[in-house]
């Protein structure tokens, strides 16, 4: 594993090959906000809240730090007016879906996001995919997944699998940055009679 030297917010940072910018920053205690990131899961890059500015080869680009691999002599900026604005609008958009999520409220305070900027569309899901990925990657049960596409995309449990597996697990509930997941599960549970017979 070769060592790579890069600069984050003016600080020299050592990282190993294959690390992402986010991991390198977290190792040095430089905060980058995240919503869809989870240490045990593959990087996903859904929420874009971890967007940072990188300068390589004389050009600056905006990238999702949870996906971007470290490069030698990379210059990373984790805060700037441009980044703050991007994060603020992203948070405002997500708050249209889940206005009462405490994680979003914390971020909103930090970036001055207006909770009521966009018309409310209370789906309570911000499509972070944490529950879906946790169930597939860690538990390997695939009890829930995404259905439909674009603005209509939502999480959906497979009742047959959920009836057998979910009652004793529920580990994905606490990952959810909103309460949508739990609500979806409660709905499936109410609809599937299979649980009471297997218990």
């Amino acid at each position, binding site marked *: 594993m070769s060592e790579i030297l890069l600069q984050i917010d003016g600080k020299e940072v050592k990282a190993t090959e294959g690390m992402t910018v986010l991991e390198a920053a977290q190792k040095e205690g430089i905060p980058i906000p995240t919503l869809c990131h989870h240490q045990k899961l593959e990087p996903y890059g859904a929420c874009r809240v971890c967007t940072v500015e990188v300068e390589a080869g004389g050009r600056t680009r905006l990238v999702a730090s949870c996906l971007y691999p470290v490069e030698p002599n990379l210059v990373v900026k984790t805060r700037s007016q441009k980044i703050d604005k991007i994060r603020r609008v992203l948070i405002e958009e997500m708050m249209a879906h889940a206005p009462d999520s405490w994680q979003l409220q914390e971020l909103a305070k930090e970036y001055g996001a207006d909770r009521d900027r966009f018309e409310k569309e209370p789906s309570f899901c911000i499509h972070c995919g944490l529950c879906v990925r946790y169930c597939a990657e860690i538990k390997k049960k695939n009890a829930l997944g995404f259905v*439909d596409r674009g603005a209509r995309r939502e999480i959906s449990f497979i009742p047959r*699998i959920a009836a057998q597996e979910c009652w004793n697990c529920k580990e994905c509930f606490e990952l959810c940055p909103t309460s949508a997941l739990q609500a979806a599960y409660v709905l499936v549970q109410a609809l599937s009679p299979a649980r009471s017979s297997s218990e």
Partner: protein
Amino acid sequence: MDIDKIDRIIDKYHGEASSLIQILLDIQSENHWLPGEALARVSEVLDVPLTRIQHIATFYKAFSLVPKGRHEIHICMGTACHVRGASRVLDSVQDLTGIKPGETDLDMKFSLETVNCLGCCALGPVMEVDGKPHGKMAPARAIDVLKNYE
């Protein structure tokens, strides 16, 4: 749709998970829709999680998870067809079949769908029935065409 038929389709693609979409398309064209048991069987044989199949089947408009009629009517609502009166054709077809776009009638005879361009604008307004395009439609002509289908 029986299991043997589904297995035959899967065998045609040597049971490879990479052919998932082709398999679903074949089931869709033979059966006009994808029943839950068919998806469960495909999931079991290909060893692909049902969540993934569900995601794909709901992502593409070519797939239907609800039963479809014996004949599928597509009415083009693209710009060229629209200015030549596609909405009047749609109205008359709706009156004849008694269904709105996205629906299937009780006899399972027709399913109605609007599309945004069939790529033959010179023939507009176009109505497609079971993949066969009928060009230069007018409300009365559209009804005459549909009377030929059983």
